C-alpha cells in the first residue's frame, strides 16, 4: 500500500514539473569585441548550424541568475592574471581585467551556489577577444564539493579524454561574445565545475564569466 502511495506521489510531482511554464532564457550579452586586425577564420563552420543556431534555451519560469558574486575555487589557486572573482562578477566585457587566466594544461574552476539548486542552464564565456577554441571543455554539477560522488556531466567535448573524465561527444566551438549556453536539464546541485585543457592559441585557460541559472531548492 505504501509503495503504491509513493509511486502516485512521484508521478504527481513529475506532472507538476512538466506543467511548469517555460520561458526563453534571457542573457545580457556583452558588446562584440574585435581586437586588432580580423584573422582569417570563419566561425559558422565549426559546428553544424543546427547546434549553433537552435534558438534560445527554454527554461522554467522563475529561473534566476544564481551565481552572481558567488565564491569560486580553482585547480590554479594563484592565477597570474586576474582574480577568481572575475568568474562570477558579472563583467563579460572581455577587456583586460575582466577575465582570470589559469595555468597551462587541464584546469578547472568551481562555483559554490551556496546551497542546492535546480539548475536550468549554465552560460560560459572563456575568452572572446580573439577567435579560439578551448580544448576538452567539460561541465559538471554535484552536491559534493570534491566531485567524487553524485556527479552529473552536463557538457563534454573532450574527444581525447585529456581531462581524464571520459570522452565526450559534444561539439567544440569558437569563443564569441555570445558565450556558450549549456542545458543543465534541471539537475539539482550546489556546485558547478568547469574543466578545460588550453586552447587553440595557447596552453592557458581563461574564464571571463560563468553564469548559473536556476531556482534554489528550499
Amino acid at each position, binding site marked *: 500500500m505504501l509503495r503504491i502511495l509513493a509511486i502516485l506521489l512521484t508521478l504527481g510531482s513529475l506532472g507538476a514539473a512538466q506543467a511548469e511554464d517555460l520561458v526563453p532564457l534571457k542573457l545580457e550579452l556583452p558588446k562584440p569585441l574585435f581586437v586588432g*586586425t580580423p*584573422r*582569417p*577564420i*570563419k*566561425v559558422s*563552420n*565549426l559546428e553544424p548550424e543546427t547546434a549553433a543556431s537552435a534558438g534560445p534555451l527554454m527554461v522554467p519560469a522563475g529561473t534566476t541568475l544564481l551565481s552572481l558574486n558567488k565564491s569560486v575555487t580553482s585547480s590554479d589557486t594563484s592565477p*597570474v*592574471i*586576474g582574480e577568481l572573482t572575475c568568474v562570477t562578477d558579472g563583467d563579460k566585457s572581455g577587456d*583586460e*581585467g575582466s577575465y582570470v*587566466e589559469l595555468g597551462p594544461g587541464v584546469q578547472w574552476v568551481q562555483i559554490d551556489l551556496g546551497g542546492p539548486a535546480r539548475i536550468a542552464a549554465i552560460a560560459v564565456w572563456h575568452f572572446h577577444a*580573439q*577567435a*579560439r*577554441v578551448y*580544448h576538452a571543455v567539460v561541465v559538471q554539477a554535484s552536491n559534493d564539493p570534491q566531485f567524487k560522488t553524485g556527479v552529473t556531466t552536463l557538457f563534454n567535448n573532450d*574527444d*581525447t579524454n585529456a581531462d581524464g573524465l571520459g570522452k565526450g561527444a559534444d561539439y*567544440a566551438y*569558437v569563443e564569441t561574445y555570445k558565450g556558450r549556453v549549456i542545458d543543465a536539464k534541471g539537475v539539482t546541485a550546489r556546485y558547478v565545475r568547469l574543466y578545460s585543457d*588550453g*586552447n*587553440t*592559441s*595557447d*596552453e*592557458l585557460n581563461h574564464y571571463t564569466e560563468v553564469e548559473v541559472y536556476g531556482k534554489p531548492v528550499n
Partner: protein
Amino acid sequence: MPRTLSHWLPLVLLTLAAFWWRSRDLASRPMHADEANQAVKAGELLESGRYAYDPHDHHGPVLYYAAVPIAWIRGQRTLAGLDEVTVRLVPALAGAASVFLLGLLAAPLGRWPSLAAAAFLAASPPAVYYSRYFVQETLLATFTLAAFVCARQWWSSGRARWAAAAGACAGLMQAAKESAPLFALAGIAALLAIRGRSDGPAPRRPVRDALIAAGAALAVAALFYSSLGAHPSGLRDALGAYGPLAARLGAGDTGHEKPWWYFLRLFAWQRNGGVVFEQAAFSALALAGVATALATRAPLLRWAAAYSLLVLLALSSIAYKTPWHAIHLVPGFSILAAGAIAAMSRGAASRIAAAALTIGVLGLLVFQADRVTRVYGSDARNPYAYVHSSPDVLKFRGLADAALSRSPGGLVRVISEEYWPLPWYLRGMDNVGYWTRPPADCDAALVIASAGLADEVHSRLHGTYDRSYLGLRPGFVCIVFTPRR
C-alpha cells in the same frame, strides 16, 4: 692568478653563461612559421647538399650552411633526423659569440664597464629571445659586431690582416641578410660623425687595406650566394634582390607596417593582456650614456650614440617592422649604458652605487628575458613572439602518425591558405600533401583544413568524418577531419 687569465676569465665565463641560457631547453617553444620554413631548407641542404638562393621569400644562405656542421656533430644526416635543438644552436652560438665580441668592442670603457656592456647584451630580452630563434637576425648582429671589432683592430694596429678579417665579416653579414649594408653604413657614418674627436688611423696604406677588405667581403659573400660555387646564378639573384624588396616595402601592404615609435616602445614599457614587458631601466641607463657621450670626449661612447641613433632612425623610418630588428639596437645601447656606469664610478662610494645599479638593471633584464623566453615564449602577448605558432602545432604529428597507422598507405591532406610550420612537424612523411585550395577529392586518412576552407573541404568528403580543432597560431584555427571507424 696570471694577469691574462684574470683579464679574460670574467668575459669567457660570461660568454659561457650566455651560451648556457641561450641553449637550454631549445626544443620547448613551438617552431615559428619562419623558423620551420628555414629549418626545412636547412634539412634539404643537409640531406641533398643542394641549395639555391631564393631572393623572393628567403634571406641569405649562411644560416642554412651554419646548421649543417652542427647536424653532423649531432649525428643528423637527413631532414627527418634534423631537430629543433640543432637548428636553434646556430643562433644560440652566434648570440653567445656576440656577448664576447661586445666585451672586446667595449674594452676602451675599462675592464668592468666593458664586462657590464657584455652582461647587458647577455641578459637583453630581445637578444636572448632571438638567440633561440632560427632566423638570420642574430647571425647578422653577431657578424656586424665581429666586423666592428676587426675594423677597430685594423684602425689601431694598421695591420692589413685585420682589414681582411673585417672584410670577411662584412661578407658574412651580407651572406646572412640583405639588410647588412644598413648596419655597415651606419657604423661608418657614425665614425665619420665623430671624426676629429678620435685618434687618427694607424694604417699607413688605407686605400690598399680598404681594397683588401672589399675583396674579402666580396669573396665570402659570393662563396655563399653561389652555393659554394655550385649555383653561380645565385650571385645575380643576390644583386637583383633589392629591387623587388624595395617595391614590396614601398607598397606598404606587407601586413607588417607599424608606427614609427614601435622600437621605442619595445625598449620602454608595455602592458599586453595584463602582462608587463619592459626594459625601461636599461633604456634610461643608455640615455644617461648618451648624456655622458655628449659631455665627455670618449670616442667609443660618441660612436655608440651616433650608431644607435642612426640605426634607430633607419629602422623607425621604414614602415615595415618586425621585432627581431630590435636586436641591432642592443649592442649600442649596452655600450652607452656601460658608459654611464663607468662615468658614475669615480670614487669608492660611487663605485658601490654603480655596481648596485648595474646589478639592479641586470636583474630586471634577466627577469624580463626569462619571462619572454620561458614563461611566455609563444604567447601572443609577448612582443617578441610575433605571429607565433600555437602550442597546438605540436599535436599534428601525433594525429598524422595515428591516422597512417590506422590506414597504412593513406594520405594526409593539409588544405589551408597558410600551413607553416606544419611541413616541419610532418617532415619525413612521404604521403603528406599541401593545398592552398581544396582539391576535387578531399578524402584522406587525415584532412587538416583551415577554418576558412573547412566548409568547402567538408562538402567534398565522401565518408563520415569526426572533427576536432587545433590552432595553427592565435586566431587561426584548423579543423582536423578523421575518418570515423
